[in-house]
């Protein structure tokens, strides 16, 4: 039971990833698809940050630090990587959608036959 209560942040991660997946599966609008991917990404980032949290830990920076009990630095570095990649991929997806809209006149993934194959 204590495990259940202490793992609430990971349950929030599961909720975020589930929300993102259901948005991706049940929507045909390409903009909404990108929103779903962004929510999924937020879930993954939350998982990485929550994975490295330590009880009563401070930021892993020694400048004017109060004590040397610090949270883990490696998951935070990987989160940084993940955030930058997410920004780049989101920009690329949005510009692809702009091009698709200019060519076909709509952003419905089901209606655009040209997207298949």
């Amino acid at each position, binding site marked *: 039971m204590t495990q259940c209560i202490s793992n609430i942040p990971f349950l929030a991660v599961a909720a975020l990833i589930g929300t993102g997946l259901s948005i991706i599966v049940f929507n045909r609008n390409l903009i909404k698809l990108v929103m779903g991917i962004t929510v999924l990404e937020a879930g993954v980032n939350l998982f990485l940050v929550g994975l490295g949290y330590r009880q009563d830990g401070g*930021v892993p*920076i*020694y*400048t*004017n*630090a*109060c*004590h*040397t009990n610090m949270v883990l630095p490696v998951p935070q570095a990987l989160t*940084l990587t993940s*955030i*930058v990649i997410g*920004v*780049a991929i989101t*920009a690329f997806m*949005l*510009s692809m959608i*702009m091009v698709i809209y*200019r060519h076909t006149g709509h952003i419905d993934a089901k209606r655009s036959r040209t997207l298949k194959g």
Partner: protein
Amino acid sequence: MSKIVRTVSELLMAFVFTFGLYMIMHGHVTPGGGFQGGAVFASGMTLLVVAFGAEKVEKRLRASTLSVLESTGALAFIGLALGGVAVGFFYNFLVGSSVFGHIPAFGPNRGDMWTGGTIPLMNMAVGLKVIAGLSLIVFVMALAVGKGRSEQ
């Protein structure tokens, strides 16, 4: 955009750019770094584009200049990584030397700027790269939107 937005963004611009550069420069002693500071700086650029329009900004700062700056940042980053290749890729060869070479004692301290070896230089290279890359994305997308609107 309206005159209010333009005036406020003119005032805010200097602070946003200074904060971004501060985050890049102090990346090895305080929270921040090349990616974060570059993102802050690029958000200032986005503010400029939103307030004044992409065509007006593009007259001052051409997109090809940004492209060259981004490639310069990437090449500087790889060059710094190759600097320590005698020991290993990404080896920090400047620790203990005369450039950014101080080694702090273990434990909390007040923060010495002259530490970190290659890390501050890599922060600057990556910061240049991120500034140029994100600004270029915003520029190009804003220009494309404006062009599509004028064609219709």
